[in-house]
């Protein structure tokens, strides 16, 4: 979607710089779905995700003047979303706990899974993980952080980060398999 380069988008950004409420609303409408897709992975519920999304948008509106209009908005916004979500997780301080894992099972091919499980269900699987597993999994797999960075941000050791990831994967694999075997669960 070429919304970053369109004139309308530029006008929206200029309006946000002037703290025009209608421009802020327009930007919110445009990127709300994307923001929710990022934040929902870090939270346990929709309402919690909305809080994180709103905090992120507040940071965007307060710092919109620092955003150069010639840059793509989405990556800048994504960074804010992920950082806000991580800060939200850190405040809750549950990510340091580790939960015992079950044995992992073989995962079917990706395409087969995606044809049978929709996005919402995948998200629900991620949300069912403990916060510590969920956070590390999201940061490493989806958002591309390295274990060293994850350890520094969350204040845990690298080995804890790696073990959490392994356990998260094992748990998800188990859940995906169970879902495929019994889609009505």
């Amino acid at each position, binding site marked *: 979607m070429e919304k970053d380069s369109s004139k309308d988008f530029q006008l929206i950004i200029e309006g946000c710089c002037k703290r025009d409420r209608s421009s802020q609303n327009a930007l919110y409408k445009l990127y709300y779905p994307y923001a929710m897709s990022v934040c929902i992975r870090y939270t346990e519920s929709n309402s919690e995700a909305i809080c994180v999304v709103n905090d992120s948008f507040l940071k965007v509106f307060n710092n919109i003047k620092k955003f150069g209009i010639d840059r793509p908005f989405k990556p800048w916004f994504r960074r804010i979303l992920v950082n806000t979500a991580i800060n939200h997780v850190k405040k809750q301080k549950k990510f340091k706990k580790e939960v015992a894992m079950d044995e992992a099972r073989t995962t079917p091919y990706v395409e087969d899974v995606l044809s049978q499980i929709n*996005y919402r269900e995948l998200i629900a699987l991620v949300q069912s993980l403990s916060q510590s597993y969920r956070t590390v999994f999201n940061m490493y797999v989806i958002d591309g952080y390295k274990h060293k960075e994850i350890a520094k941000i969350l204040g845990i050791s690298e080995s804890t980060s790696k073990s959490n990831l392994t356990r998260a994967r094992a748990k998800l694999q188990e859940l995906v398999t169970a879902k495929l075997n019994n889609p009505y669960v």
Partner: protein
Amino acid sequence: MSDKDSKDLDTLFQMGSEQYDFEYNPDAWGQMETLLEKDKRKRGLIWWWLIGFGILLLLGGIWYYNVRPIVTEIPLLKQAVEKQKIQDKTNNVGQDNQTDLLGSQKPANVDEKMIKKTIFPSSKVETKNDKKGKIPIKKPINQPIVNTIVQTQETIPKITVNTLNVDNEDIKKATENTSQLDVPHLTSVEIETQENNPISSEAIATQTTYLISPISSLPYVYLDIGKKKPVFLEFDQVLSQADHSSFDPFLRIGIVLASEITAVGSDNISKPDFKVGIQIEYNYNRKYSTSIGANYIRKNYEAGKGEYIPPQGFWTRAIAPQSTQGVCNILELPVMIGYYPRGTAQTGFYAKVGLTSYLMLRERYDYSYDLPDSDLKRKWGTRDQTEHWFGIGKFSLGHQKVYKNGMSKQLAAYLQAPLTGIGHGNVKMWSIGMRLVVHLKTAKK
């Protein structure tokens, strides 16, 4: 789990995360608006704190450079006082006990390194030990001694008159002359009389600073000169300052320049607006004055939802805008009462309180809505010249500097509080700013 399995799992969720299907949630936007309002209020409070701090800094700076007492160290006085001690001992005059340089009876505001400056006349002083480089002190024979302590601080200086040879007629005669002394820091002077107290070393030592005038038929005069170059004065010139019982009211006209910011409610702080005008001040009393003025200002402000309240039926389909930007040309007519603790004709701090009237010469408004409806009112203006008599309360704190040629300059911080709604939208606008008044002429009544 094997690496392939891990990779497959990762890919699964990465691809899945790209297929989001969330829809816009109006309730979420409602929560967002609440956050935005809270943030706006918070930013507004920060500005008020910064402005208050800035005003404090400014007043502190003015006090530091203009009001605090200045002392300079003159080591020669030590020699002079020592000399006087010896002379007193020799003459056996009123010396009760030995005291050090500053004396055990030093005033409360004199510290151990307090300075005294003594300047003696060049040629006509007769002393016993008149050597080059040393400063002699001579106590005149059969001459009344007048000690005048003229402080640059808040205390009113006193003239201590030794009643040995000066009677009330002399004092009364001298006080009839009300010409102003040519000493910038000299304030009003009081007279107090002492009974036959000859000057002793303790008395000299306890003076903060003093100056001895040339010998003449009139008594000596000692003046505290602060940091300025001393001026030799005759007795009658000094005593003329003691005339504080009568005051000539006077009028002065000034040019006003000001800059202020406006806030509606507790937020929506505007950019600075500039004001220009004239002021006429009538100083009817030593410490009080009344002033009226006329100032022109082009005021910019923003009012949030609910802060701009026009007459009923003004909004299209009763839909009020989210925010209103106002630009108003205003003629401001302040009426103030001023209080000058150090005197209306003196350099020092002052306070003013009063009421201001706003005559709206022109009003222009831009209305912003959440809705895109094209029939909603977006702009409006009027030249109706609404009048708000005494609708704004005003308070200011400032510093006045009076110059020798009758000119004076006042710099003040002020606050304007709404007593009524202003303009078409009945907006309650607060203003805070800085004001400079230059009085061009002082005319006595």
